């Protein structure tokens, strides 16, 4: 038995209590004092509902896009050798390292109507990105991508290639082998990456607000509405929206943990 358990646990719990538990208890206390009818009135307010729909809807779309392209990126990085592979591999972590405000103004500039990408999309294809839900989605794709790649990549590296060879020898085509033999083993990691990307997207603020333009009912995300309520000194309104978001965040964290224990059980460590 190693020493230091009491000290380590005591310090950890004390620190977590100060930094996490007491502040969260404050939020719970504030929510509790709201009362059900007030809470219900805020939760069903049209602007709040629109903002929540936008945050969860765009986060869902972004997570789906990230799942598809994240698996593609992980596949290329693991299976193919090509010049610049290490550079691209490092670049995948960029959204973790680049401050969200920096990413936000960069994306807003790129996709503004007169920006390099925005001009092409709007001029040639007639697609408006800035100040629309599409702009929000693009920002969320940026912040969520590494979650899928970094969850799928290590699992893909560990996959035994002999099963693929067996499938091929038995006459399965490549597509059939990929879909029926490789994908099932990747599925838990893919789901986890999807959930992480979704959870991150729901709460994201800095990278979104610049490209979104924040038009109420159209491109105003829920975290921004919390900030607006706080600036109006409407603490009850801010707290209620936060409580709704937290409930959904806790639910997704719970699902992520379930998915992980499930995947560990059936497919080894993720």
């Amino acid at each position, binding site marked *: 038995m*190693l020493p*230091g358990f009491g*000290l*380590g*646990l005591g310090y*950890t719990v004390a*620190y*977590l209590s100060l*930094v*996490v538990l007491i*502040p969260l208890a404050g*939020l719970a206390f504030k929510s509790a004092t709201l009362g059900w009818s007030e809470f219900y009135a805020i939760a069903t307010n049209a602007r709040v509902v629109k903002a929540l729909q936008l945050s969860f809807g765009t986060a869902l779309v972004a997570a789906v896009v990230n799942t598809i392209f994240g698996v593609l*990126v992980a*596949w*290329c990085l693991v*299976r*193919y050798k090509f010049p610049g592979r290490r550079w*691209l591999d*490092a*670049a*995948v*972590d*960029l959204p*973790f*390292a*680049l*401050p*969200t405000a*920096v*990413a936000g*103004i*960069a994306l807003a*500039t790129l996709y503004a109507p007169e920006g*390099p990408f925005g001009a092409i999309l709007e001029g040639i294809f007639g697609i408006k990105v800035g100040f629309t839900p599409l702009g929000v989605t693009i920002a969320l794709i*940026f912040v969520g991508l*590494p*979650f899928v790649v970094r969850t799928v990549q290590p699992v893909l590296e560990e996959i035994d*290639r002999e099963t693929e*060879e067996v499938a091929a*020898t038995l006459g399965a085509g*490549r597509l059939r082998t990929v879909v029926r033999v490789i994908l099932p083993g990747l599925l838990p990691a893919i789901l986890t990456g999807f959930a*992480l990307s979704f*959870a991150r997207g729901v*709460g994201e*603020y*800095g990278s979104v607000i610049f490209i979104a333009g924040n038009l109420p009912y159209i491109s105003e995300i829920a*975290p*921004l509405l*919390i*900030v607006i309520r706080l600036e109006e000194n409407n*603490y009850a309104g*801010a707290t209620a929206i936060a409580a709704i*978001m*937290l409930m959904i965040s806790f639910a*997704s*964290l719970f699902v992520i*943990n379930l998915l*992980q224990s499930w995947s560990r059980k059936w497919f080894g*460590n*993720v």
Partner: protein
Amino acid sequence: MTKHRRHTPVGEGPVTRFILLTLMVLFLGFILIAPLLVVFVEAVSKGLGVFVTALAMPDTIAALQLTLLVAAIAVPANLVFGVAAAWTVAKFDFKGKAFLLTLIDLPFAVSPVVSGLVFVLLFGANSLIGPWLTDNGIRILFAVPGIVIATIFITFPFIARELIPLMQQQGNSEEEAALSLGASGWRTFFLVTLPNVKWGLLYGVLLCNARAMGEFGAVSVVSGHIRGLTNTLPLHIEILYNDNKAAAAFAVASLLAALALVTLGLKTLLEVRYSGELAASRRNH
């Protein structure tokens, strides 16, 4: 081996491979690389004069100083916590470990804005301790202490999350050997445990520092945006950008983008050189 593999039916044909690689490069180019490039291009778009002026502004220097100060407090605090939490979770079995791990993961699942709101509710004028703080002249909200606390909340998982899987992989045998040979607990920790996890620790510190210097949402809520006093670099960028000083905003942003590139470079270097001494499985960053 490679020659042999080319003849096996495993793997995609050159056409499929080309399409997949092209798709990946296009996607990463549009989503990741272009935003990074545009920061540096826009920073010097109005000439080097504007770039230098923006960096030399008193508000920029004050923001830089505050950002460095916040990171200088938050990172060491989370370093000590990360080591203590990892030691406890990785080396011992106890009831409630899963709950503790969930708590450590919490900031990853909470919106930064909600993290900030939590501290507004705790320290604000309407809170339980708010009037007491005002009476005693203690300013936490809309002041530096609030920014530091919000940053600590956002960044405390990074080092712990990096060390826990690493310490779990390494097990307890080396520490037990040191103890049985008569080393004290602290001596064992500093001479056996710490050297074993030093690269993982550095990796966690890098990620923690990058996030501490770049945090926006939580800090934005608790700071009050007082120019020259409670503006960190990311908040300063927001103000410049909203004032239609895009070139100046990008000039300041290029500082943080450069920090991100240095972080990624060091991180890649650590992964290439010391991959054996970093945790094999890493879920969150």
